[in-house]
């Protein structure tokens, strides 16, 4: 039970709280401590006057200094933009090779390109530029429309089948749908296409397909099936397939055709950003 008494050595009362014989002295708070509390109260009032503080029905008290975090962020962003402008203007004015030759510009372009890639390109090509079904992997060494810095730049600027007058426009026809090839012909030519990379199952069909290929496909894919980057025709002899390399998919491709679309980025992004993107994509390991 709590009992109060005056502690003899400290000469002050106890609070009556006791734990295992240890009693809590009822020591008064030092006055300066109280004054410090008053000072904090005054500080708070000063704060209310100077800074945004009280919520109102609509809005809030703005404070004498008119401070706003939102404006500060906007200012900071504007400052950062202004600081970047030096580099970005330089990038906009320089040729791609000149940018690659200047380590400072290059690292700025790579950083900017990585950010822009995440914002604009990742939805289709993936965050790591690894691509996906129908969307090319930008890290490997196979390029539909060319993997040189200039070719990549051109593709990003104008896109693929985007409606832009300078866009890459060539398209794989739907041989089956249009009736150009009959289903058994498609089967044969598919076997032949697979045989180019050593994956054919039916050698006989493949040899029958060779002729069909020569008539219908070589215009774009070339006589030996190695493709043509000017026409966006993929190399059929390698191990990489944009839409899949099994027979069913190849048959489907020949029957229905293919024509993936990439938007033109001129007009959507400023010229400096497009250059940064080209340099970034070129640096991912597949650039030629």
């Amino acid at each position, binding site marked *: 039970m709590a009992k109060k008494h005056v502690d003899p*050595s400290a000469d002050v009362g106890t609070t009556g709280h006791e734990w295992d*014989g240890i*009693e809590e002295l009822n020591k008064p*708070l030092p*006055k300066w401590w109280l004054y410090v509390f008053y000072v904090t109260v005054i500080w708070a009032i000063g704060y209310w006057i100077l800074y945004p503080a009280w919520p109102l029905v609509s809005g809030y008290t703005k404070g004498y200094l008119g401070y706003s975090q939102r404006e500060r962020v906007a200012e900071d962003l504007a400052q950062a933009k202004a600081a970047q402008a030096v580099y970005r203007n330089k990038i906009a004015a320089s040729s791609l090779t000149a940018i690659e030759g200047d380590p400072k510009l290059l690292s700025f372009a790579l950083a900017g390109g990585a950010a822009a890639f995440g914002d604009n390109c990742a939805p289709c090509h993936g965050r790591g530029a690894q691509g996906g079904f129908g969307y090319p992997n930008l*890290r490997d060494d196979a390029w539909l429309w060319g993997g040189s810095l200039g070719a990549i730049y051109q593709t990003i600027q104008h896109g693929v089948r985007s409606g832009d007058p300078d866009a890459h426009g060539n398209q794989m026809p739907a041989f089956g749908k249009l009736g150009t090839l009959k289903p058994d012909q498609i089967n044969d030519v598919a076997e032949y296409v697979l045989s180019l990379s050593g994956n054919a199952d039916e050698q006989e069909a493949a040899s029958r397909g060779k002729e069909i290929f020569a008539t219908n496909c070589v215009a774009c894919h070339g006589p030996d099936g190695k493709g043509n980057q000017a026409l966006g025709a993929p190399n059929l002899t390698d*191990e*990489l397939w944009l839409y899949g390399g099994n027979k069913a998919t190849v048959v489907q491709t020949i029957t229905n055709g293919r024509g993936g679309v990439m938007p033109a980025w001129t007009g959507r992004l400023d010229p400096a950003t497009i250059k940064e993107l080209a340099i970034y994509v070129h640096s991912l390991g597949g650039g030629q």
Partner: protein
Amino acid sequence: MTMADVQERTNAPVGRKNGDSAPEAAPGVTRSNTPTVSDTRQSLYAGRTKVYPKEAHGKFRTVKWIVMAVTLGIYYLVPWIRWDRGPYLPDQAVLIDFPARRFYFFFLEIWPQEFYYITGLLVLAALALFLVTSIAGRMWCGYTCPQTVWTDLMIAVERFWQGDRNARLRLDKHPWAFETLWKRGATHLTWLLIAVATGGAWVFYFADAPTLAHQFLTFQAPTVAYLFVGMFTASTYLLGGIAREQVCIYMCPWPRIQGAMFDRDSLLISYRAWRGEPRGPHKAGQSWEGRGDCVDCRQCVAVCPTGIDIRNGPQLECIQCALCIDACDEIMTKVDRPTSLIAYDTVRNLEVGDKGAQPIRLIRPRVILYAVAMVVVGAIMLVALMLRPELEVSVLHDRNPLYVKLSDGGVRNGFTMKLLNKRYEPRAFKISVEGLPAGAKLDLIGHAGGVVPVPPDNLQSVTLYVTLGKQGVKALHDDDTKFAFVITDIADGAKIEHKATFNGPEVEHEH
């Protein structure tokens, strides 16, 4: 052990008020009327009872002067010590370099990821504090705590301008007298100068001291330097000059922790009540039979920087600065009694009183425990320090994507390698791979010839591509194959291997 227990044991009279004093405690010994803080009747809020510490003379005062000179000397002078680290690095012996993210301490250099050395030092410091406290109480508080040292210095300044205790009491009776005003003004001015010097010394730990000093005096130093000097000036002036014992009593958590660290064998500054009681003024020629040695001169109270009466037993306010020992010894010598009426003593000893002194037990389980813990932590740190590599390698495998299939059926893996050169000279490293099937190709982006130069005391990041041809991929047994990067120092041929993993498509045997 509670204060009340001690009170019972020591049986000291309590609650002595002013006014029951004879003018002399003993022939030639003035009796001081210093009230203890607890003498004052207190309400809910207590005004501060000003403490006017009298100057003490004796061995502990001497020790404290020396400790003050050494600790302040270290604090003010260390940033000016030079330490040659070669042409690429700062030559300041102790430097916390935030922009470059390095901490230099003489021969030691700590990178941010090696902060555990600092953690180890802090653990050691904490253990040392526990050890000392369990042996001899609040030695830290009494001798080396910055609050104690600076307060002691500020009191010395006050004494220099305003005189000792009695002179200061007299000045305070005439607060608006010219003498009071100019002497106080001089005191506060000196305090402020000391405070500025304290703040000034602080910033020198964070930048090249001579350069910053020059910038500081020509008003070209960074704003943050002035800010910190200002902050430390204010806190030194306020805490050391004005607040003093209030910091120890009301702000510091350490006194509360003490209780768990003392035991009955700790040497604490104690009044030997068994020898001193019953106390009372002693007249010339009076016999010492039947009375205690304490002549109730209250000199122990007069010198106390926190304004307490040590004769009331152990108290929270006591920082154990030992000045009361000096004061009492001086009086005991004067009245021709043995010294050490107040002394470092153990509770165990105080209990038995004059029935024979107990041997002091320094070696106790907790002392051994703290000492062993210190040795263990110290040894771990020492070993870690000796094994500290001068080249650190970290390799980060590209995760998105894990691997890239190439048109010829090969597979490429991307890596980011970081080379940390902890030497004070530039180095260059050749990088190769080991443990992959023949034909494995290594490309270093931006470093022709596979050689990566790393600046002195710095880090170089490099992008690596490891490519396996179709045959190589076929030779892999698993979709993640262990291999190693071999990093060879061009200059001395020293090699470091760093394990890594090569990822590929799942091993399948259809087309």
